[in-house]
């Protein structure tokens, strides 16, 4: 379980960072999304992994999961969702204003080779 969650977070972060460093805005937005998924999982795991345990008080139950990270994840998801929506709109507007979806706004000098994408 620990190994699965940890390596899942690791793979998400690695993919996110890779996409974040790409030169077109669309992969960068996807990279930010993956990064925020990884962070959400990380916050969740920081409340300790406790499968099958309730987060709120219930009669006759001894072990509990920590409810606070779940609330934090909820906040982080909402903020991350809003930010992703904003950055997607900004990327579209930047593409309109700059005439290119390159992150530095460099106009495409030559027709792009298909394998570059």
């Amino acid at each position: 379980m620990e190994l699965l969650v940890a390596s899942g977070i690791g793979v998400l972060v690695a993919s996110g960072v890779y996409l974040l460093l790409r030169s077109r805005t669309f992969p960068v937005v996807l990279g930010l999304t993956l990064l925020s998924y990884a962070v959400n999982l990380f916050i969740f795991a920081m409340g300790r992994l406790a499968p099958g345990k309730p987060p709120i008080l219930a009669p006759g139950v001894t072990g509990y999961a920590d409810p606070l990270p779940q609330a934090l994840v909820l906040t982080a998801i909402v903020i991350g969702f809003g930010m992703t929506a904003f950055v997607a709109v900004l990327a579209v507007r930047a593409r309109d204003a700059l005439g290119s979806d390159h992150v530095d706004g460099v106009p495409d000098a030559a027709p792009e080779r298909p394998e570059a994408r």
Partner: protein
Amino acid sequence: MNHWIIVPVVLPALAATVLVLLGDRLAWQRAIGLAATVALLAVAIGLALRANAGDCWTYALGDWPAPFGIVLVLDRLAALMLLLTAIVALGSLLHALNGCDARGRYFHALFQFQLMGLDGAFLTGDLFNLFVFFEVLLIASYGLLVHGGGAERFRAGAHYVVVNLTGSALFLVAVSLLYAMTGTLNMADMALKVAGAGAADAALIRAGALLLLVVFGVKAALVPLYFWLPATYSAAAAPVAALFAIMTKVGVYAILRVSTLIFGADAGIGSAVAQPWLLPAGLVTLALGTLGALAGRTLRRLIAYLTIASVGTILAGVGLFREAAVGAALYYMAHSTLAVALLFLVADLIARGRGAAADRLERAAAVPQPALLGSLYFVSAVALAGVPPLSGYLGKLLLLQAAQGEAAAVWVWSTVLACALLTLVALSRAGSALFWHVAPMEGSPQRGRATIADALPAAALLGCLLGLAAGAQPAARYARATAEQLLHPAGYVRAVLGGAAGLSAETAGRR
């Protein structure tokens, strides 16, 4: 319970909501935005007078007791930051009324949301709540940055947003890591838990602390995380850039708060985690910022680099971690925030007077009012460069005095003095290029004549700077008292946790 503490958060939030609902009625927007900002300044002055008594005032949101609910805490540092924010905001907003605010529908609403985020970040005593307020102020700043549109702003805006979203992801990692190790998000409670943590937890707690330093370093534009700043600040509209002068100080504030309260001198295994990095990083930031200013090709880019240099000076003072040095850094912070905001406004006045050449440091037609704009530029440049008799000089002098007797004194003295000289060179070069390197008139019709009213907001900020120099003794005494309060966080912890301290020890036993 004293409800005034939450007013700096609630007032802009209400004003912003009303402003959104108003639609595009500009006259009403201006009236409400201005009224809210003036009221905010009045409240900030009141809170600063109150904080000057030396106690920490706390406000439990929803009346939940401290380690469980979110608290707002007003101490001298928070009050100082609130006051600075309100002054800079009022100056920027007045400057925006010259027509800049009409270029986008939601300028005033975004402006108030930005103020809400800033004030909340300065007041909150909860680490996760700090993250939330950071996001509030960032998303408002994203909107403000692209205000007015244009290719340059969208390009800079995309970089700014991506860098800050990555920073936010790191912030969440750091906060949740610290939560996992201490079981609390309340900063005062976390200070107690970190101080009582065993050696087994040391590595992860210190990693969390350093991650926080990286995150706040991105906001503060600390070396090597400042590359987003020059393009962003020089692309933003003038009032927005002036307001952004306080944004880097949010990072400085957070570094100061976290490294004195949670990872301060008596934090056991967590003590002085960030401290060894701050002084060298601050000095390198100062040097690189000054070199960038020397190379700047437009006035606004030059000022943006000087913003970085001022952050370097402040953090070098903080890195010395002694009462006198931190006090000097705080005095310099008040000065540099006002001076940078002022110069951005003056640069806008100059750029409008020069027509198509804008603020590029090249030969162009003379500005219509060389005497008015020239003297404004001259006095603000003197203030920012740190030449006697203005507050920049006093701030640097205090810092140099505080560094005396430290092992790093040689480095502090040589870097600060050399950079002051180079700043002076950069600002004089820009001034002579703008005002003296004049091409013969070639009838450019779009040059705008700045009226006296246009120059008033800048003059008001200049008045504040002069006041900071004239009232240097009380201001420096306040800064010194703030430093003393910061370096002895026991009062803060007691004010927040109060009788609940025993309770939180019990929750510590549970983990």
